[in-house]
């Protein structure tokens, strides 16, 4: 689905105040699709993104280049990172290693960002750089963009996308 086309916007409408709403809705839709299809984890409800700030979180961040360029970040409760990893790999949570958590959160980062960019419309091309894992006892978002958080079974997960339309 081409979101900007279906909503009647073009890339040069990036300064439109409702653009954040569009990207937020897109983040919700893409996160939900990725979580249900590949992690077998449904979103229970949308929650306050600031809830995870200052807490112990597992994160992954990537930069993407192209037209447009930008950044994407995901952060999750450690318990969610563990359960998503177990669901993705089809193993028991007790078998999950920190390295596997980093790899799987990186895959979530990759897929959700790629899925959002592919659906955004008028994105000519993009290249995702390798996601960088992070574990922070007092998490603070590193990406200043549109952020959405979701309650899953056992904790929260947040995603944030910044699209630099002007620098493309």
């Amino acid at each position, binding site marked *: 689905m081409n979101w900007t086309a279906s909503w009647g916007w073009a890339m040069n409408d990036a300064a439109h105040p409702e653009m954040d709403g569009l990207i937020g809705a897109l983040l919700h839709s893409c996160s939900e699709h990725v979580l249900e299809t590949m992690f077998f984890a449904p979103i229970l409800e949308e929650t306050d993104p600031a809830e995870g700030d200052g807490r112990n979180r597992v994160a992954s961040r990537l930069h993407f280049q192209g037209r447009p360029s930008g950044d994407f970040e995901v952060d999750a409760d450690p318990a969610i990172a563990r359960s998503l990893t177990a669901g993705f790999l089809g193993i028991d949570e007790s078998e999950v290693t920190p390295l*596997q958590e980093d790899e799987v959160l*990186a895959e979530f980062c990759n897929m959700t960002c790629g899925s959002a960019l592919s659906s955004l419309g008028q994105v*000519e091309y993009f290249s995702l750089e390798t996601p960088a894992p992070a574990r922070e006892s007092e998490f603070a978002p590193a990406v200043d963009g549109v952020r959405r958080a979701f309650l899953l079974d056992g904790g929260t997960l947040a995603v944030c996308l910044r699209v630099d339309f002007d620098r493309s």
Partner: protein
Amino acid sequence: MALQILIVDDSPAMRAFIRRVMRLSGIEVDVYHEAGNGLEALVQLLNHPIDAVLTDINMPVMDGETFVRKLRAGGPFQATPVVVISTDATAHRIQTMLSLGAVGYLQKPFGPEQLRSELDRVLGVGHE
């Protein structure tokens, strides 16, 4: 017919997921071979009778685009079916990979049904 499948992805987690989804899809696979980039994949192709290749695009050392280009440049693997599995579903990327010689394109996220359908199409239903 049981297949020999080569999975090319720099993420061990994604390779494990693809194996899992292949099992869930009911596709009968004899042996899974794996490679972390295009160069390793070329080595695997030289050493094993691969029936189909599932490859990512963004990888270190040799990316999926270069890998498919080399595969189709000549030699014994020109006819080996290659299905691209990528997060990138822009028309530009899909067109590039198909024009290079990939015969299928699957966007992540995907489930067992989509993978089965794509492999059935590429290899022929029943894989005969």
